[in-house]
């Protein structure tokens, strides 16, 4: 096997096992620990490992979903960190936990990492909660909801001639069609663009079908550094490039119809250095897929969101990590050679992470 060389860091790191819960609108019978436990158990089983094999653990979640401090603290009990483990947590999507694990695995002697992300959007009113992400002095007091902000972005794209409402509907139609073959998806159906265009507006120009579902869910990944990855799986999904960037927070300080942070992260991750077979883009709103695709320079030959993407299942704090899972699974099963995984955080795509995953030739 010829392991593809990484663009960043010195040590090749691969995704070797994945697991995710089925995303659902409301999982009432399980708290966060109970939601995570079967996922963590499954990812260990998929890797043929136990917790004793893991050198580092990192998770992503946010306190604001549970409405209390330290939601990650009890979640750690799902992992069973005894004897004690080197462990960390980011108040970010699980994709950034994966980034921290990737950095940690650059060190000799740290070979295996467990990464997980989880979120139960059903616990509160997500539109009100996400308003608390905004500048606390000038924006949050007006409680702008995430759908209205996304609509501003979509309108900016229309105004700049970058997309039409029909384009948004076409994306939603394809996403829900793709989701029919994804057992973990929450919204899957067969509707044409023309049918979808009869939907009401949620907030113009966004019709109902352009919005992501509200989801509860969890996801986990095991990563391995170096040739040990081949002991776990025949075709590890090697992370050959990874980078993340943040844009200005104030909406007036950036062109909402573009994403400079995505462009820069994609350049550093080396997206354009070869053909991209599939891309899993963390575009919760349909129009954001067009925007991200442009920002990364992906052409028509790339299959976008074969899983259905966030329009089919969108658990907050795990949605980005699930993009890595869907991309890695397609490398590991041989259906793709080179894939892009993308994650976003913050209002209207403020922060973006881009990675290139490759199979060994």
């Amino acid at each position, binding site marked *: 096997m010829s392991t593809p060389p990484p663009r960043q860091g010195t040590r090749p790191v691969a995704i070797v096992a994945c697991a995710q819960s089925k995303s659902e609108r409301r999982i009432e019978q399980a708290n966060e620990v109970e939601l995570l436990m079967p996922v963590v158990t499954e990812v260990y089983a998929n890797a043929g490992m136990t917790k004793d094999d893991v050198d580092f653990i990192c998770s992503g979640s946010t306190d604001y979903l549970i409405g*209390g401090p330290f939601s990650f603290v009890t979640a*750690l009990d799902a992992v069973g960190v005894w004897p004690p483990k*080197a*462990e*960390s947590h980011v108040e970010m999507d699980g994709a950034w936990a994966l980034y*921290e694990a990737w950095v940690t695995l650059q060190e000799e002697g740290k070979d295996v990492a467990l990464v997980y992300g989880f979120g139960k959007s059903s616990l509160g009113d997500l539109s009100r909660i996400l308003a608390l992400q905004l500048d606390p002095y000038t924006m949050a007091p007006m409680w702008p909801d995430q759908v209205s902000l996304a609509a501003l972005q979509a309108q900016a794209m229309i105004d700049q001639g970058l997309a039409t409402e029909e384009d948004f509907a076409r994306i939603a139609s394809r996403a829900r069609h793709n989701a029919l073959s994804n057992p973990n998806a929450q919204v899957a159906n067969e509707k044409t663009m023309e049918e979808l265009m009869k939907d009401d507006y949620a907030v113009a120009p966004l019709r109902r079908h352009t919005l992501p579902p509200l989801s509860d869910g969890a996801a986990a990944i095991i990563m391995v550094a170096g040739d040990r990855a081949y002991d776990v799986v025949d075709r590890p999904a090697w992370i050959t490039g990874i980078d993340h960037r943040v844009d200005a927070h104030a909406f007036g300080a950036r062109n909402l119809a573009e994403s*400079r942070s995505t462009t820069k992260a994609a350049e550093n991750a080396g997206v354009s250095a070869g053909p991209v077979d599939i891309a899993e883009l963390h575009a919760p709103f349909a129009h954001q897929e067009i925007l991200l695709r442009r920002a990364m320079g992906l052409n028509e030959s790339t299959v976008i969101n074969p899983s259905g993407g966030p329009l089919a299942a969108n658990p907050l704090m795990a949605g980005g990590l699930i993009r890595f899972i869907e991309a890695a699974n397609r490398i590991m099963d041989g259906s793709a050679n080179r894939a892009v995984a993308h994650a976003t955080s913050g209002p209207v795509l403020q922060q973006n992470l881009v990675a290139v995953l490759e199979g060994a030739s």
Partner: protein
Amino acid sequence: MNQRCAVIGVGQTHHKSKREDVSIAGLVREAALAALEDAGLDFSDIDAVVVGKAPDMFEGIMMPELYLAGALGAVGKPMFRVHTAGSVGGSTAIVAAHLVANGIHKRVLTVAFEKQSDSDAMWALSVPQPFSAPLLAGAGGYFAPIIRSYINKSGAPNNVGMKVAVKDRLHALKNPYAHLHLPDIDLKMVEESVMLWDPLHYLESCPSSDGAAAMVLSSEDVAVAQEKTTGRPAAWIHGMAMRSEPTMFAGRNLMNPQAGRDCAKDVFAQAGITKPRQELDCAEVYVPFSWYEPMWLENLGFAEENEGWKLTDSGATSLDGGDIPWNCSGGVLSSNPIGASGMLRFLESALQVRNMAGEHQVPDAHKALGHAYGGGSQFFSMWVVGSDKPE
């Protein structure tokens, strides 16, 4: 560590009950700009920004680093946000240092903060969770029974905690950034303060502070160059480690947690330290409630089990004549912007080995420990820094 990593700049705010003169952005910039000035750099030199703080509900802002991207010069750069409960300031420094030590970036700015006056931390920590043991009234309500068990087990005299409270406040008088400056502090004043959570008096508890801490971490080549430019020495990281243990597990020893012992063992092994009391010149250890000094003296291997209180009792941990001064800055008992409290321990240990701690400097300090813990005594982060490069 694949490569050497150094602390080349530090900055902190004047910690106070209420910093009503600044917004949150103003608060973090005060620390960040001071750290950059110390390092001889500005925002444009920085490759990545790593932010840490304790629960977001303390200020009522979800992921406040997003709004702070501009204030911290992070636009167009990688920005990262760590949250590991009370240990977060320490973990954040370690996450930032890994970016340098593992060869990803050369100059990383790391910032931690809390603006506790925006909320009531005690009750923010006391939100009942379904199926979880309540923290009762704030962190003190959680830790007091553990402290009582320690006193019973170790046979420590009842006034050892009060001695820690006095010692750290005397140290704080030498630190212009400290929140509490109590010139008349003595055992009587502590004893006469109201009993909050038996055996913890009001003055044996940490204050609620607004404050921020920042550090610039760099690769060896940058550190050497900046030492020449600024004339100020770097502090070199000799070891760093994190450990966590579960919340609900019957096998835990809350008085002497396994995760703390393992973390100390790891960080001392990296730094080549076998006898921490002899080989370290000082330590900045997260002591939010007085009795955690004797408990952590044992947990970190500075004393045998049940003997930690004897070091405190004899004055060994005092800057005034002690052989292993702990918390020369006044520690968490004197300044507690929660999210930054751990980073302040890491930062103060770096100041000591750079010989830049001013009035609270330990003469000729060459090696120091920075320590933070969080959750229910279950998350630990530590580093050892030295004035010389590690081997």
